[in-house]
């Protein structure tokens, strides 16, 4: 009896998610009810989608802030999760606004897109809050399944079909491997609860005999690597990044913009939770560098981070398609953000949060600029940017702002994000393995220089090359407003970043081991 009450009692901390669920169902219904020929169809559906997000946001704002595990320890409600929820809702609202005025979503099919988008958002909510291996897997599937469908959204388009199929196959393999790892963890430890796992694993780590210890370590290590595979696939870190460019190229651009920030951020939220709860062993606020099964997991993540950013940047160098270029750039950004995880400290987590927040704005902005260019020229290569500064100065300037911010140049917000990542890594300078952290930071700095090269290629095309023909570039008014707002925000928070720091600082409490 008490257990059921616990379930019902939890629902009052679950209202934003309930609002999203209701919104999904409502949109499914509205999609059928509003006539396909109606002129107001897009407007009605867009308003409905925005209203759902708005209601969820309002409920989130009035939700009590204290941390608690809900639904018998399945998911958590804590300030950390709330931070990510705000981020996801923001990304969703902006994507809805972008998609409403995009050419890629014909009005008969836009309702389903909104509904699926909201279900992805719900899945991301669950990813950021899950406290149980079961929920973790379920949440990842909830994000993945609708994404597969939206990636193949354009009917009869070969690239879209390829994107969808590749996404499904990579996703299926990744989640299959992750499930396999989860089953090993459950078999070895006997619990699926993240908060219990860490404690159990520590007690297991007590040495028995050399052989058994080694066997246990190998089994756990393989299991954890399998689990990391599922998470790494979501954030597009390197061994699991192959789907990224093809999917970005084939999927509708507004959704790609969302995909590059939303699920990635959710993946990081999940990674932080998993990492803190059982990978890195406890003991002191900064002292979890030596982790599970005597494997220095922060070092593993550090290597992943270095490889990811280097490979992403090097592959981006010779891309001519803007979406593919941004895909590789998003891979390298995942690498940067992994630095914060590798730092394995409060500061590291905070830097990841700041970076994801800033990345949301600048990457959405960059994709918005690509959409605007593609709407005018019909394709999305670097050559399409030629002479953009003369055809539409606002678009060119804001795109340049986004690209510089992505590079991490001051005085833009991208610099703040990167600065905190570097600080988090370099604060280990004096500690154990300080040299490795310094190496990581040096690699990241070199990568920033590399990335400057390909970002500047676009900027050079926009400002120096002559326009190819007499093409009129006139982005929609709502896009112009959004472009302006995004770049203003990047400039503002590039010089006045206190609110970011305070907000993330306040959101740092979260449920880890019981």
């Amino acid at each position, binding site marked *: 009896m008490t*257990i*059921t009450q616990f*379930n019902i009692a*939890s629902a009052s901390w679950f209202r934003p998610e309930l609002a999203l*669920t209701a919104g*999904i169902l409502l949109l*499914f219904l509205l999609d059928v009810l509003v006539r*396909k*020929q109606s002129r107001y169809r897009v407007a009605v559906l867009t308003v409905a989608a925005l209203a759902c997000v708005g209601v969820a946001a309002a409920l989130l704002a009035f939700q009590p802030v204290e941390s608690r595990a*809900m*639904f*018998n320890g*399945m*998911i958590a409600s804590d300030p950390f999760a709330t931070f990510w929820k705000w981020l996801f809702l923001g990304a969703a609202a902006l994507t809805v606004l972008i998609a409403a005025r995009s050419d890629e979503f*014909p*009005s*008969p*099919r836009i309702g*389903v897109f909104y*509904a*699926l988008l909201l*279900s992805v958002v*719900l899945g991301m909510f*669950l990813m950021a809050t899950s406290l*149980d291996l*079961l*929920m973790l897997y*379920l949440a990842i*599937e*909830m994000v993945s*399944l*609708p994404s*597969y*469908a*939206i990636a*193949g*959204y354009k*009917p*009869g388009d070969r690239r879209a079909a390829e994107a*969808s199929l590749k996404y499904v196959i990579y996703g299926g393999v990744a989640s299959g491997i992750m499930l396999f790892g989860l089953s090993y963890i459950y078999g*070895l*430890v*006997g*619990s699926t609860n993240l908060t219990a796992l860490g404690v*159990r694993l520590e*007690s*297991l780590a007590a040495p*028995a*005999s050399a*052989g*058994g210890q*080694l*066997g*246990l370590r*190998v*089994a756990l290590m*393989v299991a954890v690597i399998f689990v990391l595979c599922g998470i790494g696939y979501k954030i597009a870190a390197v061994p699991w990044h192959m789907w990224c460019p093809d999917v970005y190229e084939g999927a509708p651009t507004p959704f790609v913009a969302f995909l590059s920030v939303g699920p990635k951020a959710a993946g990081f939220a999940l990674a932080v939770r998993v990492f803190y709860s059982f990978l890195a062993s406890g003991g002191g606020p900064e002292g979890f560098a030596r982790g599970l099964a005597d494997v220095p997991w922060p070092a593993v993540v550090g290597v992943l981070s270095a490889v990811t950013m280097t490979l992403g940047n090097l592959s981006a160098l010779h891309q001519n398609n803007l979406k593919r270029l941004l895909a590789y750039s998003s891979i390298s950004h995942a690498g940067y953000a992994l630095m914060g995880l590798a730092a394995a400290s409060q500061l590291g987590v905070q830097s990841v949060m700041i970076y994801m927040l800033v990345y949301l704005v600048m990457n959405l902005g960059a994709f918005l600029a690509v959409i605007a260019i593609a709407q005018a020229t019909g394709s999305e290569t670097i050559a399409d940017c030629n002479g953009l500064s003369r055809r539409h100065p606002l678009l060119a300037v804001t795109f340049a702002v986004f690209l510089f911010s992505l590079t991490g140049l001051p005085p833009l917000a991208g610099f703040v994000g990167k600065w905190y990542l570097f600080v988090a890594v370099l604060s280990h300078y004096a500690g154990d393995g300080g040299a490795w952290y310094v190496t990581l930071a040096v690699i990241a700095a070199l990568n920033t220089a590399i990335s400057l090269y390909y970002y500047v290629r676009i900027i050079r095309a926009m400002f120096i090359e002559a326009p190819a023909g007499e093409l009129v570039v006139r982005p929609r008014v709502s896009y112009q407003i959004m472009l302006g707002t995004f770049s203003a925000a990047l400039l503002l928070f590039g010089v006045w970043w206190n609110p970011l720091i305070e907000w993330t600082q306040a959101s740092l409490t979260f449920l880890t081991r019981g």
Partner: protein
Amino acid sequence: MNYILPGPSLLDKLAFIVLASAVLGFGLLTVTRKSAVTALMALIGACCALAGLYATLSAHFLAVLQVLVYAGAIMVLFIFAVMIVNRDDEQPIALRGLFLRAAGVLGAGYFFYRLAWIVVRERRADVLATSITLPIPEYGNVASIGRLLFSDFLFPFEAISLLLLVAVVAGVLVARPPRPTPSGDRERVA
């Protein structure tokens, strides 16, 4: 103390050996057969043998579901897909080249050896038994599973129902032919 069986008897051991080797054998067939349909049939065999293993562990409900859902529904859908695609000329093993194959086999072999060590040599009680809560007496029957589903695991249970709904709609979105747009019927629905 073990609630499930009064100790592994000869028959239990025999059943386990037969079923486990069936799972492994069918699994090997699945990954080595060139013909996709034959591989799928082997997979069905593996699923059924797995269901048998569940049944020997007193998880009858799970065993039946394993057959009903996997061997029955999902595998039939797989066969459908394979029949429609029907490409028998594909190399069944993804890892090409001697080096990768050797590395894969060695790595898997080492991992298996270590796992086997835990189970066979060590019998680490703390890993294998005490850390796992012992099953309740009515373990595995429908009522106990139902009770768990509607108490401890209510939330994932409900979340899955939403997930399935969304997946159905997503599937329809991908599969349905494009409909005529309001600007003019370029494509007609058959």
